[in-house]
């Protein structure tokens, strides 16, 4: 999927500002002082494991829950006092929540019927939105006659026909199988490009969030841990949790041995000295956590020729190779017993490297530029 500036997007919709929102259910703190700023027309994801508060936050924006404190501003206006039907936001529900007694056409037409829109306008608009989700042929069917993907599209059309300034999507793809999920994701992205309004997308699937979002807020236990672009979240996770939750990673603790510019040399517990990058280097002697992504590690049978400045080399033994078609994953055990995950893309014609098998003694190398300090522990 292409991201970035080359597409001419019409930016519509509202900006959504969430300020110090708090919500608990009994003893359980669902949201603990959450503040997020979402820009006009942005595809914004709330990402986190189940129970992290992301759906509660969405329901507060929609008006189904009221927080104990804080504010939700749509285009600068606080909407917390307004009931759901007064807010110019619409929701695509996790279970679709299509009205079983109404046809696809009437489901999509629901909000226009409430507004008592003239019949000719209803017909034209419903046709337009059914076309957007490619369901013209199914207008007279009941929801029970549709497949999961089709139900999803009806739910999207029904929510969009109102021309909301913000579309809220509550794990909309979780009920679909993996292939369909990919397909719907691409479609959602293209609908977002066409309509141009703000999308707030709740998901626990980091892959989904990374592939379509302009920005992501990673949440856990009622708190926002990091807000950033998919690249920022993936490449520079703000906390151990973010590093572990997004993609696969190697996360270890170490002590800072020396600092030169943005390069920090760590005294690791199991790999000897390792050079990593830190934009704000912690003082020498700090205990830190550091990370290197598995695909940023090079695996080979020979010791890397130049122990160049900034290249780390670690020796180990392949504990477990896992073949998965387009790539292989290796669990490599260092002499200290620590295990590093390595992902190797499968060779094209230019790669003449030898096959790496179970029990092989291997050398791992990675650049200091790809390894980061995540958290400073003390």
């Amino acid at each position, binding site marked *: 999927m292409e991201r970035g500036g080359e597409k001419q997007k019409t930016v519509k919709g509202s900006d959504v500002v969430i300020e110090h929102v708090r919500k608990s259910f009994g003893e359980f703190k669902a949201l603990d002082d959450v503040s997020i700023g979402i820009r006009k027309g942005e595809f914004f994801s709330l990402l986190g494991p189940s129970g992290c508060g992301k759906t509660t936050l969405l329901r507060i924006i929609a008006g189904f829950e009221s927080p104990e404190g804080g504010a939700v501003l749509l285009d600068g206006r606080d909407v917390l006092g307004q*009931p759901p039907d007064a807010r110019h936001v619409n929701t695509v529900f996790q279970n679709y929540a299509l009205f079983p007694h109404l046809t696809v056409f009437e489901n999509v037409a629901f909000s226009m019927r409430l507004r008592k829109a003239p019949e000719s306008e209803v017909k034209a608009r419903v046709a337009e939105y059914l076309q957007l989700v490619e369901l013209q042929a199914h207008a007279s069917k009941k929801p029970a006659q549709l497949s999961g993907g089709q139900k999803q599209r009806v739910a999207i059309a029904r929510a969009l026909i109102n021309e909301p300034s913000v579309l809220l999507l509550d794990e909309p793809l979780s009920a679909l199988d993996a292939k369909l999920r990919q397909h719907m994701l691409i479609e959602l992205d293209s609908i977002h490009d066409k309509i141009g309004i703000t999308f707030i997308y709740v998901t626990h699937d980091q892959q989904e969030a990374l592939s379509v979002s302009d920005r992501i807020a990673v949440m856990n236990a009622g708190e926002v841990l990091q807000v950033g672009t998919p690249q920022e979240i993936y490449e520079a996770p703000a906390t151990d949790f973010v590093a572990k939750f997004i993609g696969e990673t190697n996360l270890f603790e170490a002590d800072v041995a020396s600092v030169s510019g943005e390069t920090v040399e760590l005294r690791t517990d199991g790999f000897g000295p390792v050079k990593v990058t830190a934009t704000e280097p912690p003082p020498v002697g700090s205990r830190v956590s550091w990370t290197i992504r598995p695909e940023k590690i090079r695996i080979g049978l020979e010791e890397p020729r130049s122990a160049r400045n900034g290249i780390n080399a670690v020796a180990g033994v392949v504990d477990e190779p896992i073949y998965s078609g387009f790539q292989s994953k290796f669990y490599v055990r260092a002499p200290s017993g620590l295990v590093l995950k390595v992902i190797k893309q499968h060779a094209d014609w230019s790669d003449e490297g030898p096959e790496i098998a179970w029990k092989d003694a291997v050398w791992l190398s990675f650049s200091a530029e790809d390894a980061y300090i995540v958290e400073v522990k003390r």
Partner: protein
Amino acid sequence: MNRPGDRAGGGALGSVREPGGLYAAPATLWLTVFFLAPLAIIVAYSFLTPGARGGVEWTPTLDAYRAIANPTFAKVTLNTILVAIGATAVTLVIALPCGYYMARSERQTLLLMLVMIPFWTNFLIRIYAWIAILGNEGFLNDLLRALGLVDESVRFLYNRGAVMLVLVYTYLPYAILPLYSTIDKFDFSLLEAARDLGASKLGAIVRVLLPNVKGGILTAFLFTFIPIFGAYAVPLLVGGTESYMLGNLIADELTKSRDWPLASAISLVITLVTTIGVLLLLRANGASTLGGPAGEASADGAAPEPAVGGAR
């Protein structure tokens, strides 16, 4: 249901076919002995001559049906229809919010118990309890006098209002239970979806909840309307002359006038009115959706036989 695969099996399998009829035998027997046979007897009696001390003589006549065609009978029928429709409507209006509340409550078992507790006391005792409450020297009048709100007893009993009140009280659980069980299956996120799309609270209920629980509403209607239409004990005990109902007329014909053919003819009228009414309702509802969510037509397509004319 036909399973084509069984046919191809041939041999030993082929001889064992369609055991459904056998399995249904107890139900068929039950219906025949306790429903169809009595109905046939009533139909037959209605065309016979009354015996001198009850019973019938085997001389065919249409006298019973001629006797029905008189203004008194028309007046009682009209009153019965009015009371039945009125009491059923009031019952449903009360039962709907009750069923909704029960379905949404976290203490469903407790509430279910509370709805059923009245059944632990005999039906007649509960009617006498109402008499004790509403009578001229009853609890309510004592209270009103003690508070100085009235000087003389208010006559609450022995009118159509009292009959309606006690009927509503009696049949409320029969309406609440099917409504509760249907609403309990309702997906409440649909209400949120409706609110999200711009419906008010009431709008969401009317446009989304009611159409999706109409099967339960229909069941509740049948469970209350049919027995109320054949009510006997309630109008007898708390009603006056003007709240005389068809059930009372039948009892009088049987016990006082000893005109069994006429009693049979009247009860056939009740059967006919309720059956036609039920069929019309089912047809208007599209299919037999008793109890189940709307739009889910049952496989056999046959409407369940309503329990007609249960005079209490």
